[in-house]
């Protein structure tokens, strides 16, 4: 994963371009170790070395994309790139004009490298298996290097490297109740993680109490940061995208049209100062360090990429092709951690949510399940775990009239997904007390 090799690769391929041809490409590469465990034992262990490079080739008013593997071998990469360029030239002849093609330009250079100190295999086995003996411990450790890079034929260059780890885990009780945890970072601290595990073991005790089955209906709830994170994820799936609005599938439409507002307490932004993901997008555009999306409950802007901007003749704001949030942040409020249960008084403490989906996207209504350690709270004290409940509720209720208070602390929750490759990015979210949260099953 050498930046110099990548830049040399780019210079070589750009030197082969003819007049009228332009090329932008994105590199995605990783060397990852995945250690999967169940019942405190090793289920699967997999090492992956992979890379791919996506050519975005333009000739005149036509556009074509081609993705090929990119390995650590410069000679093989050069051969593949040469062949790929030939294919680009062949294919583009057949294609119609691209009405919303964005001409390439040099949007600058950037280098960000976040080196880390990853655990050795001995440290991994000691922490995951020796310190959890006798416990029903399940999940995955993922660690290694990730690279995202971009170059174009106008001279633009971006490079982002992150060395990091994530232990995404759950502890289960004999009664099938679970506590969820995530230990993630760049510098492994075995003692810190051991302490987290010890705390988790203590918290398991409350989960051993008999569960309470609640009737469907409306309850006051505390959405812990991990639970709120699931709802924020939904906003990137037909919520904050301008293109989604124009295509008629946007949960923020009523907010955009001024028919509804969120609570003045609610502020949402893209905040790249978190350092979780590259600031450049697939065109090499640098996003603003902070972009406010919702301010005091009112929509400031949706995410707009350059292609959308050209189609609808508006201004782009550095969004990715997908127009989803890459590094989102919800502003904190005033509720102190020690006051959460008192503020909730009688209601449900929701630590996590599961499998969300829009039940009526036009009205911003979504459904999902409670998951892991969720509790019934009475007189400001945690009483018992609850049987899982299904909710069906509107964003305009959750973040609008029913939003009572927001915690004065937030948690950084990195993306842990690994479909095809390990994800980058994440979010910083607080907890929230919400009234009349609607449970339906």
């Amino acid at each position, binding site marked *: 994963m050498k930046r110099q090799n990548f830049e040399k690769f780019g210079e070589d391929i750009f030197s082969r371009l003819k007049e009228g041809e332009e090329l932008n490409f994105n590199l995605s590469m990783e060397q*990852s*170790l*995945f*250690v999967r*465990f*169940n*019942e405190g034992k*090793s289920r*699967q*262990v*997999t*090492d*992956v*070395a992979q890379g791919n490079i996506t050519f975005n080739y333009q000739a005149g008013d036509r556009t074509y*994309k*081609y*993705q*090929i*593997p990119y*390995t*650590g*071998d410069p000679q*093989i990469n050069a051969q593949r790139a040469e062949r790929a360029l030939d294919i680009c030239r062949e*294919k583009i*002849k*057949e*294609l*119609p004009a*691209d*009405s*919303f093609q964005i001409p390439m330009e040099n949007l600058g250079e950037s280098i960000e490298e976040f080196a880390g100190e990853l655990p050795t*295999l001995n440290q991994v*086995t000691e922490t*995951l298996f020796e310190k959890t003996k006798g416990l029903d411990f*399940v*999940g*995955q450790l*993922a660690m290694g290097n990730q690279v995202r890079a971009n170059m174009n034929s106008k001279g633009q260059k971006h490079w982002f490297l992150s060395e990091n780890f994530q232990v*995404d*885990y*759950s502890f*289960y009780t004999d009664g099938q109740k679970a506590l969820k945890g995530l230990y993630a970072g760049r510098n492994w601290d075995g003692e810190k993680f051991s302490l987290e595990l010890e705390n988790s073991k203590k918290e398991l005790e409350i989960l051993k109490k008999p569960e309470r089955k609640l009737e469907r209906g409306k309850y006051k709830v505390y959405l812990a940061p991990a639970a709120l994170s699931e709802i924020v994820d939904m906003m990137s799936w037909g919520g904050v995208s301008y293109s989604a609005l*124009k*295509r008629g*599938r946007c949960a923020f*439409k009523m907010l955009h049209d001024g028919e509804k507002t969120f609570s003045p307490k609610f502020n949402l932004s893209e905040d790249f100062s978190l350092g979780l993901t590259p600031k450049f997008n697939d065109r090499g555009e640098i996003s603003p360090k902070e972009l406010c999306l919702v301010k005091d409950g009112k929509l400031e802007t949706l995410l707009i990429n350059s292609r959308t901007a050209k189609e609808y003749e508006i201004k782009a704001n550095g969004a990715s092709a997908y127009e989803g949030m890459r590094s989102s942040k919800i502003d904190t409020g005033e509720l102190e951690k020690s006051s959460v249960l008192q503020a909730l008084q009688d209601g449900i403490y929701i630590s996590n949510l599961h*499998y969300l*989906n*829009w*039940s*009526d996207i*036009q009205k911003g*209504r979504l459904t999902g*399940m409670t998951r892991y350690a969720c509790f019934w709270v009475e007189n400001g004290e945690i009483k018992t775990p609850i049987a*899982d409940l*299904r909710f069906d509720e509107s964003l305009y209720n959750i973040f609008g009239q029913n939003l009572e208070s927001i915690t004065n602390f937030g948690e950084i929750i990195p993306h842990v997904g690994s*479909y095809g490759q*390990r994800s980058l990015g994440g979010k910083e979210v607080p907890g929230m007390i919400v009234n009349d949260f609607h449970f*339906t*099953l």
Partner: protein
Amino acid sequence: MSLDLNNLLKKLGPGADWVSLREVEELGTRVFIRNGRPEANENHFEHGIMVEVLVDGKFGHAGTDDLTPEGVKRAFERAKELAKKFAPYNIFPFDKSSRPVARGKYSSPAKMAFDKMSMGEINDFLSLTCDRLGKREEIINAHAHLMLTDTITRFISTNGSEFETKQNIIDHELSVTAKQGNEIQTRSWGNAAQVGLELLNRDIFYAEGDRIVREVIELLQAPECPSETMDILVAPDQMILQIHESIGHPLEVDRILGDERNYAGWSFVNKEDFGNLKYGSDLLNITFDPTFAGELASYDFDDTGVKAEKTFLIKNGLLLRGLGGIESQKRSGIEGVANSRASSWNRAPIDRMANINLEAGSSSLEDMVKNIKRGVYLFTNRSWSIDDFRNKFQFGCEYGKLIEDGEIKGTIKNPNYRGISTPFWNNLNMVGDTSTLEVNGTSYCGKGEPNQAIRVGHASPTCLFKDVEVFGGA
């Protein structure tokens, strides 16, 4: 260009009790036309190899796209190192019997190869189709999408396995969104299957396009779906989700064993339920069938070399067998199937669905409609959610029809329903005959740590369920 796997395997050297190489080579073509204009014209090519070793009863995996002999050798050494290091903490001591000898070749039943149409011709086909979709002034968005995928998997092992799986896959979708005042509705048609370019029949695409345009316009004026407990008649393009989420996933034995509890979830099904649990009514017959020609997840061998055969999972409503590959079978003692599959060269195989089908019954569509006093007829999934034990589900559909006194009445919008898996399947009241059967598939079943999206197929007739909680939009 494919690799000389025999030669690579010979050069790896000692140190493992068993070794396999699984090479995957995939070429994809994607064309997306929106509102008559090209939005994406893309190819992707990937080629890599997974080295799997068995050392001290532990499987170790190392995937690489460095396909030089040195690159594959490095992966082999890494896989051995990992297997050895983690063997003392192994969840189960496996041996070579977990990788049976498999030899053969499988090819999709495609008649017209993908190279018989250029990308330009595909653009023309989809553009003309898309133009028809967008003619009404109410249509604010129309798209036509096609993805062609040629995948070749080659597997070789030190105990004599050597097989090849060639799959030609087409994913396609037409979609229209219409707006009138504040009302916005979407209607779509699509599928994924192992098929060749013979699928691109202009008459069929035009007819389906015309139908979804007609239906989306109907939805703009339609009343909300009523909210009450009533019968539901479920079309195959919604049955795909119903089978997938509330039968397929709960029967995965790795879920039952707890492997997925930190991500996809557990299961309400226990080991003791096999042979005992009345999962559904007597009319419910569910098969695992990777031999169904043209269905999306058809193959001869899974990624551990187990021969794929049609098998009943549920017969006359009784749960018989789980969706467990050879490793899960050994760990659990539950009879399983050939479903240990990996999404690509860079992931290890885990228990997946493949083709899970609901066998046709004997009722005609007319008979089922006549049997309904008050109910809704549901088409095309648009929303899906279920809990981590696979009990409490809620699904939404694009399009519905009200049924009263045995007759199909007007169109209704925003139909949703919710229920709990086994009570719901025990309310299965009538199962459509083969005239109502459709074979559907999706390329995006997600599961596993690390995550894997895999292709699954679900053939189903139209089915009638009694006493379901139905509701409309906000």
